[in-house]
């Protein structure tokens, strides 16, 4: 699945709009922009395992939550903030590689259930290990004594930075041997092994890639909010939302996951503001409609129109 020029254009425009919000919008909009960038990074990460490889992973919140906690624990131990983020990224990457070697033996629905269990197990371990994580009381992080606008702007650019790095990684993987191999695994795993692809190693690489940007975003999020607890860090809702975002935009494409995340967060904001009682229900209906009528994601609308008008899709 190749992204067309329109997708690149939308992607560039989207990032530009997010990056320029501090120039003309209030803090609420800048905060929303930072959230869009964060979910964009999470969905783009998920794309490695879910989009390219076709493994329906629901581990996003586990990697995000572990990133929160590793970052927070490091910062509380006196490690400078950005170094703490890097340590969190590295440690969660190693964790994902080790876990992946076990859990990626499962396929299809079994893998989906296994990956969602990882989130719950992580949450339970973190809430029980009070001596290290503060248990259900959560952890406070060193506060950043900056003016609110400056703080918001800083974290907007941090989240945008993580998003851009995840997009660059996607771009490189897409063109390399790894991306080709992952797409082969997606199509037919047995045939992939028969042409000489080390499927286990490739899947572990994809799973690890899907973890590191989530961990970075989690660690940055922890520093941003200044306080984390197990329920907030390991949300089942997040783990479900992120794949929906990626599929909404177009799983397996470069620009799709980010565009889907942007559309999803904006829809959520609109429904949250206008239909306080019904927002979840409306969101549910939107998801069902999308699954039934737009299984290829928003980007496929454009492709479909091109196909109809006779051009090569």
């Amino acid at each position, binding site marked *: 699945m190749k992204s067309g020029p329109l997708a690149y254009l939308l992607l560039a425009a989207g990032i530009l709009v997010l990056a320029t919000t501090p120039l003309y919008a209030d803090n609420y909009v800048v905060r929303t922009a930072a959230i869009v960038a964060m979910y964009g990074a999470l969905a783009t990460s998920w794309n490695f395992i879910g989009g390219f490889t076709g493994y329906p992973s629901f581990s996003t919140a586990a990697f995000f939550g572990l990133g929160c906690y590793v970052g927070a624990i490091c910062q509380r131990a006196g490690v400078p903030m950005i170094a703490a983020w890097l340590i969190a990224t590295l440690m969660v990457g190693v964790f994902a590689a080790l876990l992946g070697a076990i859990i990626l033996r499962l396929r299809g629905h079994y893998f989906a259930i296994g990956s969602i269990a990882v989130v719950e197990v992580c949450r339970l371990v973190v809430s029980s290990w009070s001596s290290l994580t503060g248990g259900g009381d959560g952890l406070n992080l060193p506060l950043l004594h900056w003016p609110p606008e400056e703080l918001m702007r800083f974290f907007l650019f941090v989240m945008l930075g993580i998003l851009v790095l995840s997009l660059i990684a996607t771009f490189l993987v897409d*063109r*390399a*041997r790894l991306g*080709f*191999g992952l*797409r*082969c695994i997606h*199509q*037919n795993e*047995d*045939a*992939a*092994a*028969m*042409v*000489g*692809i*080390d*499927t286990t190693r490739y899947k572990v690489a994809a799973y690890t890639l899907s973890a590191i940007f989530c961990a970075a975003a989690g660690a940055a999020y922890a520093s941003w909010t200044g306080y984390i607890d197990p329920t907030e860090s390991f949300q089942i809702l997040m783990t479900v939302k992120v794949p929906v975002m990626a599929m909404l935009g177009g799983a397996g494409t470069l620009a799709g996951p980010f565009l889907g995340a942007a559309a999803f967060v904006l829809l959520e904001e609109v429904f949250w503001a206008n239909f306080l009682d019904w927002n979840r229900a409306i969101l549910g209906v939107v998801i069902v409609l999308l699954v039934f009528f737009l299984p290829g994601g928003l980007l496929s609308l454009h492709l479909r129109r091109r196909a109809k008008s006779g051009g090569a899709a």
Partner: protein
Amino acid sequence: MSTSTTGDAILKLDGVSKTFGGLKALTDVSFALQPGEVVGLIGPNGAGKTTLVNVVTGNLRPSSGSILFEGKDVAAQKPHEAARRGLARTFQIVQPFPQMTVLENVTAGALFGGGAASVGDARDMARTSLDFVGLAPLADRPAAQLALAARKRLELAKSLAMNPKVLMLDEVNAGLNSSEIDGALALIRSIAERGVTVLIIEHLMKVVLSLSKRLLVLHHGQMIADGPSREIVADERVIEAYLGQKYAAKLKERHHG
């Protein structure tokens, strides 16, 4: 019944057995392939032919016995290792990457199994093997759109792009009509002319006899015959295995009577 099992055999099986629980799929199978040889493997349904291929390419691990490829024991290898060593196969039921184009399918073979240095190189190798099997005009079609005969050719192109030393063709002619079979036969012959060792697993006697001078016969998981094709076809046990005892006896009577 004997083969020249000299030391330079490219593939050598020695006492290979495979059991699934209580079921013996292969019992003490031994044979050797010389480099450049074209050998037919025949046997009735359920004789264990596909199991044998699966054991050689690492899809199944043998319960006992050894498999030597270029003198190295490869019984414990994984499928992707077999592919990289030069042990390629086609599947009885074709296994394309359905959403990818024909060219991309073959590129995968060249890139991962054929040792291409880059995706671009792999694409060039893929074009060469598509030309070779005559699929070049369909290069940009999704594999899922091909008719069966073209899909079988795609399988061949994919395994050729892997630069195999030994190619195992599992019923590449099943489901083809007779003119398509003639086309496939010409293709297999030209593959063999490139020096690739070919093991043809077949149901159709006509196909095997026209391609290979040597036949292996598998029956109930045992190698019951191994030798020159003409002798094997006249072998009583082979006729029995294929046609049943009663018919074989009748045939014998007629010959003698």
